[in-house]
């Protein structure tokens, strides 16, 4: 099977030839190509080359256009802090909606034209052209809660849930519309799957997740499906108390980050949800050895059961020893999916 066929089979519940392997790489990939991260995030041609080079070097089954959380915010006019060799960041003190009244004056774009969002769309087109027959192509959007945090400032948003819930609903309507537009264009450009990165959702707890986040995440998932794409949900952090909700969204795959136990994720989400993860990228992958990584993956597969894809819980960090990444891929290539119990 090609990597693309393998992942498609895994997501469809049709047992692939062996486990699929989908680690998230960003700065790690830019280091493989030997470029500064600023070039990676600003030029889709550099990102595409780095992703292909990394996938081929290690044997990943896919390539991704995940890069940083600021593409959408930048295109809307947010002030971004740029760094030569690390991900750009939003200046929270100058967040676009630090003043709530600004929300009423800003429209989410219907079309993604010019700017950093178009750069990702073009990256997908390039990856589809160069690698789409063999590798699964992944687009990426900020989830509704994460984008709200990017535009409002995360500290303000956390207080808004209590102080002004109506504003939060309006803000999430805005970020949802933005995410749907962006996802649609990525699917049209050739993305097989759209990653939805909603890290801020792991901070809010089950009550706020259920009322404020889940309904908007659900609309996004449904919209991506309606446009012919698949969904990879990625909520960084400790999602232990919201696992059940995450599993009810209908995502094609759900990443589990290292603080949430994989066996709990399986218990909460049922046997048919495809899960990925959840080695600790620092303690397990960067600081481990091929032997400890293989042992950790054995244990994880026992916990995850069938419908499981090999990955770390979050992005592989730079300075991760290559032999450790090879060990992850080797495990995937030498192990089969379990049958559903």
């Amino acid at each position, binding site marked *: 099977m090609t990597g693309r066929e393998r992942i498609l089979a895994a997501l469809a519940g049709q047992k692939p030839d062996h486990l699929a392997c989908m680690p998230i790489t960003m700065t790690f990939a830019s280091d493989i190509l030997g470029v500064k991260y600023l070039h990676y995030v600003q030029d889709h041609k550099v990102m595409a080359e780095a992703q292909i080079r990394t996938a081929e070097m290690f044997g990943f089954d896919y390539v991704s256009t995940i890069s940083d959380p600021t593409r959408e915010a930048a295109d809307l006019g947010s002030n971004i802090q740029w760094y030569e060799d*690390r991900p750009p960041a939003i200046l*929270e003190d100058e967040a676009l909606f630090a003043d709530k009244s600004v929300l009423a004056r800003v429209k989410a774009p219907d079309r993604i034209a010019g700017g950093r969002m178009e750069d990702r769309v073009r990256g997908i087109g390039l990856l589809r052209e160069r690698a789409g027959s063999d590798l699964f192509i992944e687009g990426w959007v900020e989830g509704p809660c994460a984008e709200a945090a990017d535009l409002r400032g*995360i500290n303000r948003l956390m207080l808004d849930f*209590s102080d002004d819930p109506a504003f939060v609903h309006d803000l999430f309507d805005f970020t949802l519309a933005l995410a749907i537009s962006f996802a649609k264009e990525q699917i049209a450009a050739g993305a097989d799957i759209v990653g939805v990165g909603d890290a801020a959702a792991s901070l*809010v707890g089950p009550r*706020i997740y259920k009322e404020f986040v889940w309904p908007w995440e659900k609309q996004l998932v449904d919209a991506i499906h309606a446009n012919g794409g698949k969904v990879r949900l990625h909520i960084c952090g400790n999602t232990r*108390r919201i696992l059940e909700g995450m599993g009810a969204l209908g995502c094609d795959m759900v990443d589990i980050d290292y603080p949430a136990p994989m066996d709990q994720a399986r218990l909460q989400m049922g046997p048919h949800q495809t899960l990925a993860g959840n080695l600790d990228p*620092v303690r397990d992958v960067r*600081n481990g050895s091929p032997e400890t990584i293989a042992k950790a993956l054995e244990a994880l597969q026992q916990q995850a059961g069938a419908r499981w894809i090999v990955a770390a819980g979050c992005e592989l*960090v730079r300075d991760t020893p290559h032999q450790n990444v090879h060990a992850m891929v080797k495990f995937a290539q030498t192990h089969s999916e379990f049958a559903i119990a």
Partner: protein
Amino acid sequence: MAQSRELYEAIVNGDAKQAHAVTQAAIEAGIGPMTLISESMIPAMDEVGRLFEEEEYFVPELLLAGRAMKGAMELLRPLMTASGEKLSARVVIGTVKGDLHDIGKNIVASMLEGSGFEVIDLGADVSSEAFVAAVKERKPQFVCLSALLTVTMPSMKTTIDALGNAGLRTQVKVLVGGAPVTMQYANEIGADGYSENASGAVGLIRRLLEGA
């Protein structure tokens, strides 16, 4: 004392208006700041920390409680200055150079302030020079460094080294934290302590003070 209980509940419930009103009433009734801090604020923030550890409270509840506590503290601070009363220790805290993540640091700062420490929050993206200047000027007992990215963790060592070069290293205990940070890393860079969460940071500082 009724006001102590009311202030405790206002903070735990994240009710900034009530915390302010109760504190104002307590001041007018002649209750001293240190009494309110020790009988209400510290127990309230300890309870908030416990609820966070138990995964009953999450970041929104922590920030609401922190806001309520800070509002009360704003009323007490001038009274403490006037009477010369001091909090038990002074802590300088910040997210290190190159790193703009601050929510974890903000939670630690709130917990420390609510635990009766004087907290000087330098914000995010703080250079080693700024930490050194703050230590020179404010003479804290503790410096807390936060980083959320592996690429910014080296700024922690840079800061510790800068304190050493400025002749200030032995005057402070340096504590580090943040998602990618480990006890092993803390030991490697010569930090005095590491905590993986906000409650742990409070406990660590309390233990270090007892052992001092």
